[in-house]
């Protein structure tokens, strides 16, 4: 009997299975949370993720930050150097394995990354989810969340804006998905339809958003109005291409509404009017450089000029997966020069993956008076390494010239074989001179630092300055007061021969050395990696819109309407701020080493040429715009380097706007999409970027592509394009991996013809 009692006891230990198998969610929330106002607040905060798209990592950096006429592709050195900026292996969408570009566009469309679904459509899905749930809230809750609704409407429009800027027509999705749909039939909507939706969303956003916010980084009315103005302008630009015979231009058509330019001016005026009296420069931050300082208080981030920025913070706890990667992207490889500048927090981590084109430097037509050149570029470095090993040493010739000519009164003499760099002293200088103002090579090489100049000239008739035994040749020395050789007769003029190893930089002779170029200082972040990790994430905010651009948008709209006077007024707000103001100092590189200043072709008042080069007279009058900049004949107009295809005054005006945008906004990730929407991207790369342009292009008459006097066969500067630019590259390809996921209404995969029709022109 005992055993049966025991058995019955055991049998009762059988489980009640219903409870036992129930899965309780302990550590995770589900989408039911969005039925509450609190949940929607949370969804809105999380949706700010997409504002970081451009700055977060390569996908945003590359799609929007390189590939204009001033910012050059540099995916990998081998690609750019050997095959040019554009090449089929990087862009081919037909590959079932994603290529670089399709991998990037796949991220833009939507992709998993670090545990989140990132990209435009996931963001659109979140906005749709918000709006659907918002509609079901009580009116009290709705009122409390009305600003959030405005933010989500903005984010939906901003998502479609980035998406269409890269890919053109795209599916328009205005509802969320709660489970697997019965098919993946997502035909593309015309940009015309998408633009209408964006405008509807943004007009409502402008209406419901507050003018200011106490929560830094929240989307406000000025930000929404700015984007709306930009979208009206883009539609007006595209309207011209309705009947274009060029498919990539025709694809820019977004509808034709005659009032668009007026709407653009109306909405652009909103932030301008709100802010124009906040500073003496029409609401702009008084000093252009302040926007890009690296002071530890992050003062750059709190400027009123900034209408919207993606937020990052120094503890990097809330910075997403990568932080602001722009802090690495454009940096030149200062560590591989023998300049005693190892990788430290002082200078950027050298990704060396995107760099300026020659035009990126030359677009600044008056470096002496337009402060933006020296405030945009990192022209000089200071030696930061105590170690002298690996530093560039003096040789006989340079030591002799330094001791006897360059610095005869120096207490510390140059010693042959000793490292020429000194800790804490200047170690690298970049000079972007023109071919008619080359530096003498002995003078360049004999500086007590490494000097990287674009154009350098050899000794007269190539005879050299020294005899075979190292003694100087009589009477053949360079005048140290006048190192710029304007008369180059009988001399070889050489393009980008560095002051270090003597090999070229920035051009295709040597992939290693081509990592050297003058990079921008706009994203230099000395506090990256929590101030400890030189390779760490960036923590400075990424500016999405600033008021200077609003002025440029409105100026373009005025100009397109023929109102050049109003356009010039807006442009001069920009120029007024761009000038050197009394009380600030010019860079000593500018005053002492800039060839155009040495020769006097650009003038600086004599009184301001004395260290510390303090400015006493505002230089605005030297750079104020008067309209001759686009007359097609004046010297100023020639310096603007208009593509020959810009035949009319309006064409040149529009191109001037984009020159000014380049000067003001380069490396801020707006150039590519703006040039694209304006229909100018192809022409400007064709005539401005030697590394992108095909061989048929030789540049423009005023700025021909450089040609080296020393032949190196097919490598080096040949006076013609070295890339494979094609019109199709102005649109990015849809990835085949994406297209293969699409189906028809019956859930069948698309056939090859349908896939081809979905793809952008030319691919």
């Amino acid at each position, binding site marked *: 009997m005992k055993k049966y009692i025991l*058995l019955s006891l055991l049998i009762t230990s059988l489980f009640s299975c219903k409870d036992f198998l129930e899965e309780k969610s302990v550590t995770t929330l589900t989408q039911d949370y969005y039925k509450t106002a609190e949940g929607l607040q949370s969804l809105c905060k999380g949706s700010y993720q997409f504002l970081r798209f451009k700055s977060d990592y390569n996908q945003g950096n590359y799609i929007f930050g390189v590939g204009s006429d001033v910012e050059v592709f540099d995916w990998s050195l081998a690609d750019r150097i050997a095959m040019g900026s554009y090449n089929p292996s990087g862009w081919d969408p037909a590959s079932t394995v994603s290529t670089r570009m399709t991998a990037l566009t796949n991220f833009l469309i939507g992709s998993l990354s670090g545990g989140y679904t990132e*990209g435009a459509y996931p963001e659109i899905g979140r906005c749709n989810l918000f709006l659907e749930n918002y509609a079901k809230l009580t009116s009290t809750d709705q009122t409390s969340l009305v600003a959030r609704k405005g933010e989500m409407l903005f984010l939906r429009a901003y998502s479609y804006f980035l998406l269409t800027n890269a890919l053109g027509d795209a599916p328009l999705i205005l509802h969320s998905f709660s489970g697997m749909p019965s098919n993946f039939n997502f035909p593309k909507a015309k940009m015309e339809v998408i633009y209408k939706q964006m405008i509807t969303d943004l007009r409502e956003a402008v209406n419901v958003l507050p003018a200011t916010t106490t929560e830094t980084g929240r989307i406000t009315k000025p930000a929404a109005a700015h984007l709306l103005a930009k979208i009206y302008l883009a539609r007006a630009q595209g309207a011209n291409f309705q009947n274009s015979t060029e498919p990539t231009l025709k694809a820019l058509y977004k509808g034709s509404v005659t009032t668009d330019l007026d709407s653009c001016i109306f909405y652009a005026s909103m932030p301008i009017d709100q802010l124009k009296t906040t500073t003496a420069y029409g609401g702009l931050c008084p000093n252009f450089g302040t926007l890009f300082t690296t002071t530890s208080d992050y003062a750059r981030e709190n400027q009123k000029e900034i209408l919207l920025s993606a937020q990052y913070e120094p503890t990097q706890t809330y910075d997403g997966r990568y932080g602001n990667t722009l802090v690495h992207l454009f940096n030149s490889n200062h560590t591989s020069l023998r300049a005693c500048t190892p990788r430290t927090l002082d200078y950027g981590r050298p990704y060396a993956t995107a760099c300026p084109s020659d035009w990126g430097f030359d677009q600044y037509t008056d470096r002496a008076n337009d402060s933006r050149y020296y405030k945009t570029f990192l022209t000089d470095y200071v030696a930061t390494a105590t170690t002298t090993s690996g530093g560039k040493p003096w040789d006989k010739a340079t030591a002799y010239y330094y001791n006897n000519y360059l610095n005869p009164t120096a207490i510390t003499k140059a010693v042959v074989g000793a490292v020429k760099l000194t800790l804490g002293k200047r170690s690298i200088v970049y000079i972007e001179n023109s071919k008619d103002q080359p530096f003498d090579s002995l003078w360049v090489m004999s500086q007590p630092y490494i000097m990287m100049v674009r154009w350098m000239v050899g000794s007269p008739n190539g005879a050299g300055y020294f005899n075979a035994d190292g003694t100087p040749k009589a009477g053949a020395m360079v005048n140290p007061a006048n190192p710029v050789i304007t008369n180059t007769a009988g001399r070889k003029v050489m393009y980008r021969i560095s002051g270090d190893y003597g090999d070229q930089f920035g051009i295709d002779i040597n992939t290693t050395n081509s990592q050297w170029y003058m990079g921008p200082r706009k994203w230099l972040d000395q506090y990256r990696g929590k101030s400890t990790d030189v390779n760490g994430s960036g923590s400075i905010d990424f500016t999405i819109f600033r008021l200077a651009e609003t002025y440029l948008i409105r100026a373009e709209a005025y100009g397109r309407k023929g109102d050049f006077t109003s356009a010039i007024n807006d442009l001069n707000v920009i120029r007024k701020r761009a000038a050197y103001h009394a009380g600030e100092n010019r860079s000593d590189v500018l005053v002492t080493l800039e060839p155009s200043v040495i020769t006097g072709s650009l003038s600086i008042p004599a009184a301001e040429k004395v260290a510390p080069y303090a400015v006493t007279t505002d230089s605005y009058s030297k750079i104020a715009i008067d309209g001759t900049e686009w007359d097609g004949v004046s010297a100023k107009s020639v310096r603007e380097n208009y593509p020959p295809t810009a035949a009319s005054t309006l064409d040149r005006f529009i191109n001037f706007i984009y020159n000014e945008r380049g000067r003001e906004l380069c490396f801020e990730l707006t150039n590519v999409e703006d040039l694209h929407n304006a229909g100018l991207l192809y022409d400007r790369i064709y005539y401005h970027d030697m590394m992108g342009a095909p061989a048929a292009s030789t540049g423009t008459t005023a700025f021909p592509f450089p040609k080296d006097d020393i032949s190196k066969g097919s490598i080096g500067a040949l006076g013609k394009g070295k890339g494979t630019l094609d019109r199709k590259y102005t649109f990015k390809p849809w990835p085949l991996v994406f297209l293969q996921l699409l189906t028809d209404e019956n859930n069948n995969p698309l056939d090859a013809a349908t896939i081809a029709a979905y793809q952008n022109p030319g691919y």
Partner: protein
Amino acid sequence: MKNKNAVNQKEVCRHRMLLLKMFCMLILISTAPLAFAQSVTIKGNVKDSQGSPLPGVAVKVQGTSQGTLTDVDGNYSISVPSSKSMLIFSFIGMETEKITVGTQKAISLTMKDSSIALNEVVSIGYARVKKSDVTGALTQVTAKTLEERPVQNAISAMQGKAAGVDVQSNNRPGEISNVVIRGTRSINGSNSPLYVVDGVILMGDMNDINPNDIASMEILKDASSTAIYGSRGANGVVLITTKNGKKGKINIDYTGTVTFDVINSVTDWASAGEMLDRYRLANINGGTYKSGSTNYMYPDPAVDLAIFGHSDAATMAAIRSAYDWNSDGTVKTRATTSEEQAAGWPAQVPVYNSGNVPTTDWTKYLTRTGVTQNHQVALSSGNDVSKLYMSLGYYNNKGTQENQGYKRYSVRMNGETSPLKWLTVGVNLNTSLSEQKYGTSYRTGSSTGPNDAYGLALSQYVMAKPYDDNGNLILYPGNNQSLPTWNPLINLSTTDDLTRKLTIQANTFADIKFTPWLKYHMNFGAGYRTSNSGSWQGSGSTTRLKSGLPTTAVASYSTSEVYQYLIENLLYANKTFGKHDLGLTLMQSGQYARNVGSNMSASSIFYDACKWYNLAANSNGKPDSYGTSFSETSMISYMARFNYSFMSRYLLNASLRSDGASQLADGHKWDLFPSASVAWKLHEESFMKSFKWVDELKLRFGMGTSGNSAVGAYSSAGPLAQYAYTWGTTAAYGMIPYNMPNPSLGWEHTSQYNLGLDFAFLNQRLTGTLEFYLSNTRDILMYRSIVPITGYAQIMDNIGKMRNKGVEFTISSKNIVKKDFSWSTDLSVSSNKNQIVELVNGKQDMAGNNWYIGQPLNVFRTYHIAGIWQNTTEDLAEIAKWKANGYTFAVGQYKPQELGTPDYKLTDADKSIVGSTDPKVVLGLTNTFTYKNWEFSFFLYSRLGQKYFSSLLPAGINGTNYVGYGRHVKASDFWSPSNPSGKYPQPSTASAATVNASLTQASYVNDGSYVIVRNISLGYKLPAKFANKLNMKSMQIFGQVMNPFIFGGEVVKAGLNPDDTNGWTSTNSVGESTGGTNNNTIINTSFVAGVRVSF
């Protein structure tokens, strides 16, 4: 083992003898009146194969109830009815002997060991049956096999011993080898089999089980066998039976081995001089061996120092030593030959001899002779009521690499008692405590690269030195600060990691016999495992030094705790009706598992000594990041099994299991797993009786469906993810959706058909098994990419189909059986073909994951190379055509082979699949020779037809300016204008620009086949007499060499170890194979000395 049993038995017998003798006498007396008239008394002595007397052997007269047992000295005496009577001698573990009395008065014999005895009992899951009654496909691995080599865990011991079980090696101490039974089925889920120890699912891992505690392992391979484990059976089931106490006197066994492990590099490394020559040649060919604008064609010290010296003292000294120097510091020169002058050399060139360049052997600084200690003491005892087995194990593997190691203490206690006739209760308790030093290698400069100290050593420069003249470590040997290449020796003392695990698994069981045919069994198992893991990079470690000043330490610490229990109720009914044997098993079980974890990390730690034990020692006063995690799963199962046998000749087995799991969505929680199998014992048929040489011939067929529990907790619900944004510097956390919910998520299902044949011929001299199988896996759990327009990029879904088919063959042969000498051979061969049948969207390849329909899961897909461009007009014309499309190629470099019509573009269409990491054939061969007390054996293991993906090009072929490690290569192997048949491209610094990187990969696919001599062993067993004198029952001493030789093709010759396949299947983000060089490339050769003593 055999002898031990025998001795053991002897002890047991002394105690039971009296009782048994009385019992036998009683029988004899009772039968005496009937038998008296013709009875004959037979006497004799029974010995075992070692010549020791065998006590306790049952001696029976056939057809009668007469019988006796041998005494302690192996003697017996029995009365038989007539001279026609036949005596049957039987003893466990020995082959039963039948001898007709005839005229003999004394019958003495030596009993033979039975290696495959038909009456052996094996586990089949929830029951043990006679091996001859098995209807499914299973392989048994016995304690004897496990004892062959000292191994860290029982998995390693299975390698090559069980056909169809592919065990990959893993050289890192404390790591568990990957086991795949009959091919890969799951893509995202685990392919590891289910381990069941003494009837209860293993709650830790196989490292927790001391292999010396295992009595036998049965590997269930086909679905008809594994379906009774339902949703968890698809990957095969390994049933482990641990040792138990035996009735008799206390038995104490000690087994100990000491192993010396040394790294055995099969590469013929080039000397520093050869490497310098190769780098220089590449620079000369690439036009980069120059000073100023002058190109040099011959070795020149100034150019050498400028290009290769890098201001590094050791490197410069090494270069200088290749030249002869005058006392004034100028280099000695020699006159050039006319050939040299014809090649453009000047009249005088420096005297140069690369043989004088000293080579730094970096590996010796980072490796050592590893010593592995493995000791176990086991105690067993038992009486009629209770049995007990206790063991204490210690395993300590001090790895061959300075920063690796593994240590384990294990305790096991198995006990059972039968307080009442109908009741048996027992407990199995296993505790294991382990410590692993993983030996993380902190790479600097690149996120990929060597992942162990040996690999780091090989990434150093051969002319650089780790220490300066004062004996201090040099930060950048070779002075490469831009890559940067740090001295890996720095990290030996400045980084650390340690993982500690404690596992306790306790199973209790109760058996109740209601009637002779009805039994109830209950299992209750509870497991607890806690592990904690710390890693530390001190302020002086390379990664910290790299981050810039001031350097501080970083460390992280994580813990995990798993708590599980399982309750099983089983009811067994077995009944025989005439020729019909019927059995029914019913099972109900519930399982629960709960995982809790925590992790934290801190940077800027003030002081190094605290390692990861004080993560608040920074300026924040707290770790930088910390978190906790939690998950729980539960499962309920019901199972019924029916078995039927007719005349012990025709067998049928059928089962049905139903599993309900918590992690599946409501409405989809339950699933059914059926199976059926039949067997036909042909040898029992009368028509087979005439084939005397056939002992066994059994044909089996089975089919069934099993599942794989790849679904993680909460994966069907579509949870939200926390995203951290910020307003200024104020946290703004948001919750955003990330995976699309999938309410219909279910198990993966594998259906398998198995046809098997078991045979035993020639009086068991030749035994073996042949199996054919076909398995189809469906509903494979995959993250399915969905059109991101939905707002979600992927969903976990049941999609995809995979097929595996294969054949397995096992044969054991006793080639020679003599009194003093025997030779036996065991061979196991298996071949599996893996094939993807369907993926997402049905028939569409998933190139982004490197998955192609109709191909194995792990394939390599690359461009093709058509040799090397020659300096011919045809080739130059071709190069020009490529050049027009932007592809730069050069003479002496690889030439692409386009597929289809050439268009002079390297597109995806020019790639094709060239091989797989899967071996075509896996085989294991053991030969054992015994001579008197000596035993000699060796074991060969081989994987054939697997492809290895990595560059085998000799290092230095692309020049660069830092002279690193490389393989020795004959000059004639390099292409040159005068040697157009060289198999490697011409060394040239220009090759980086002239060879498409993806094209080079076409040369990466190499045959990874190999044969390794896994061990050679020699053992000696002390004669029982001597052992007894030493108060031992038995003693065996042995020595062996493990992994002494490996043979193979290019891969082996290149110094890579294809035996360790970890990482071979790695791919990059676009699905291209990245190859396996990131993992261990070495083989440890080990020398073992061991002893087994039984008291």
